[in-house]
C-alpha cells in the first residue's frame, strides 16, 4: 500500500519530459526526483545555485558548500553547473525552466496558487516561489487534496496568492486537475477513487468530460 505522497510524486514524475530543466520545491515535490521514468533525462535546478545535483552523499562525504534549497546536503552529478542567485533567477524568470513542481496551500477555480503564508498564523516568506510561478514554462502543484478534512481546492482563494498567473496542473492523491479558461477540468482520478469522491473532496466546481480515466502511477522508483 503506497501513501498519498508517493501517489502524488509518482504521478507528477510522469509529467517530466526528456532533456528538460526542472525545479522541485521543498518537501513533497522533492520526492518526484525518486520516480523519474526510465529513458527520461532531466536536469534538476536548485535555486540556491546549481543544475545537476543528485542524492545525498555517503555518510562523512558531505560538502558544506553543497546543499539544496532546503539546506540538505546533495551531490553534484557529472556535468553540473554552479552559479550565483542572480543567474539562478535569470534562469527561472527568463523562461529557461521547463517545469517547476511546487507544494500548495490552496488553488482556486481560476487556477491561482497560494502557498507562502497563512495570515496571522505562519509567515515563512515566499522564498523563490513567486518567481518560479511567474517564470517557469509549466507550473505543477503537488499537494494533498485536503488538509484536516477541508478542501484545498477552493472556489476563491482565502489565502494570499503566490502569483496572478494560472498554474498548469494540480496533482493530488485523488486526482489530476487542469485549470482551463472554462474552469478546473478533472483529467484523471487515482486508482480506486471514484469521481464522486473527488467532487466531494473539492471545494470548487469541477468540469467533467465523459469518463474520467484512472491516473497512472506506474513509474519505477529510481534506486538511491
Amino acid at each position: 500500500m503506497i501513501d498519498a505522497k508517493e501517489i502524488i510524486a509518482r504521478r507528477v514524475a510522469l509529467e517530466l519530459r526528456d532533456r528538460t530543466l526542472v525545479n522541485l520545491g521543498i518537501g513533497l515535490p522533492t520526492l518526484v526526483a525518486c520516480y523519474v521514468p526510465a529513458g527520461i533525462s532531466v536536469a534538476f535546478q536548485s535555486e540556491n545555485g546549481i543544475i545537476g545535483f543528485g542524492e545525498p552523499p555517503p555518510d562523512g562525504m558531505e560538502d558544506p558548500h553543497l546543499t539544496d534549497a532546503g539546506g540538505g546536503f546533495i551531490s553534484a552529478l557529472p556535468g553540473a553547473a554552479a552559479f550565483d542567485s542572480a543567474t539562478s533567477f535569470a534562469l527561472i524568470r527568463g523562461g529557461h525552466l521547463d517545469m517547476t513542481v511546487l507544494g500548495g496551500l490552496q488553488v482556486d477555480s481560476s487556477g491561482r496558487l497560494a502557498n507562502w503564508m497563512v495570515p496571522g498564523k505562519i509567515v515563512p516568506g515566499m522564498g523563490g516561489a513567486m518567481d518560479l510561478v511567474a517564470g517557469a514554462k509549466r507550473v505543477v502543484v503537488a499537494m494533498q487534496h485536503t488538509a484536516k478534512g477541508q478542501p484545498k481546492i477552493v472556489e476563491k482563494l482565502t489565502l494570499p496568492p503566490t502569483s496572478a498567473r494560472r498554474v498548469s496542473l494540480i496533482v493530488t492523491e485523488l486526482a489530476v486537475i487542469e485549470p482551463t479558461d472554462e474552469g478546473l477540468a478533472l483529467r484523471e482520478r487515482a486508482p480506486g477513487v471514484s469521481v464522486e469522491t473527488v467532487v466531494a473532496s473539492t471545494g470548487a466546481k469541477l468540469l467533467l468530460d465523459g469518463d474520467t480515466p484512472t491516473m497512472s502511477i506506474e513509474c519505477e522508483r529510481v534506486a538511491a
Partner: protein
Amino acid sequence: MQEGISAERAAAMIPDGASVMFGGFLGVGSPERVIDALVARGARGLTLICNDTASPGIGVGKLIEAGCVTCVKASHIGTNPITQKKMISGEIDVELVPQGTLAERIRAGGSGLGGVLTRTGVGTVVSEGKQVLEIDGESFLLEMPLRADFALLRAHEADHFGNLTYRLTAANFNPVMAFAADCVIAEPDEIVPVGVIPPDAVRTPGVLVHHLVRRRQ
C-alpha cells in the same frame, strides 16, 4: 594589496544601526566568524539584507537570537522560529522580498540601475504601494534598488588583491552583494598570493573588496 584584518576588527568597523548585507543561503556561504564577532561585541539595531535568517545558532540566525537586529529584508524566514517570534512581538521589522527580486534589486543597487521591472509579485501583496508599469501590454512591478552600508561576504579563496572565488552553492548572494555596499568585507576560507587564482576563475574582482578577514591565528 590588502592587509588582513581580524574578525573582531571587522565587527568593530560596523556601527550599531548599520545596514548590512550578508551572503548565505540557510547559513551556507555565510561569514560565520564575523557574525560571531558581531554577536560578541553586542551589536545592536542592525538592518539585515540576506536571503533568509537561517536557523538559531547558524549564520545570521545567531544575530537574530542575540538581539543584534531590528530590521530584516529577506525572502524567507520560515526556518528560524525566533525570527517569526520577534516579528510577531514587534522587535524585528520584516520586509519579505521574492528571492529573484531580492537578487535583482541588489544587482540594480550595485550596477547603477534605477530599478527592476519584474512580473514577479504582480497581483500579490508584494505589489502593494508599488508602481506597476504597462510595457508592451504586460504588467511589470517597479522594484527599487537595494544598497547597504556594509556587505559581509563568505568566499572560498581570496588573493592579496581581494579577488574572490566561491564554491558550488556557497556562492548564492555573495557575488551580487559585492557590488552593492559602501564597504565590502570578505571572509575567505583560504588566502593565496596574487597570481594563484587564474583571471577566468575570479568571480568577484578584488577592486570591489575593501577588507579581507585574515585566517585564524
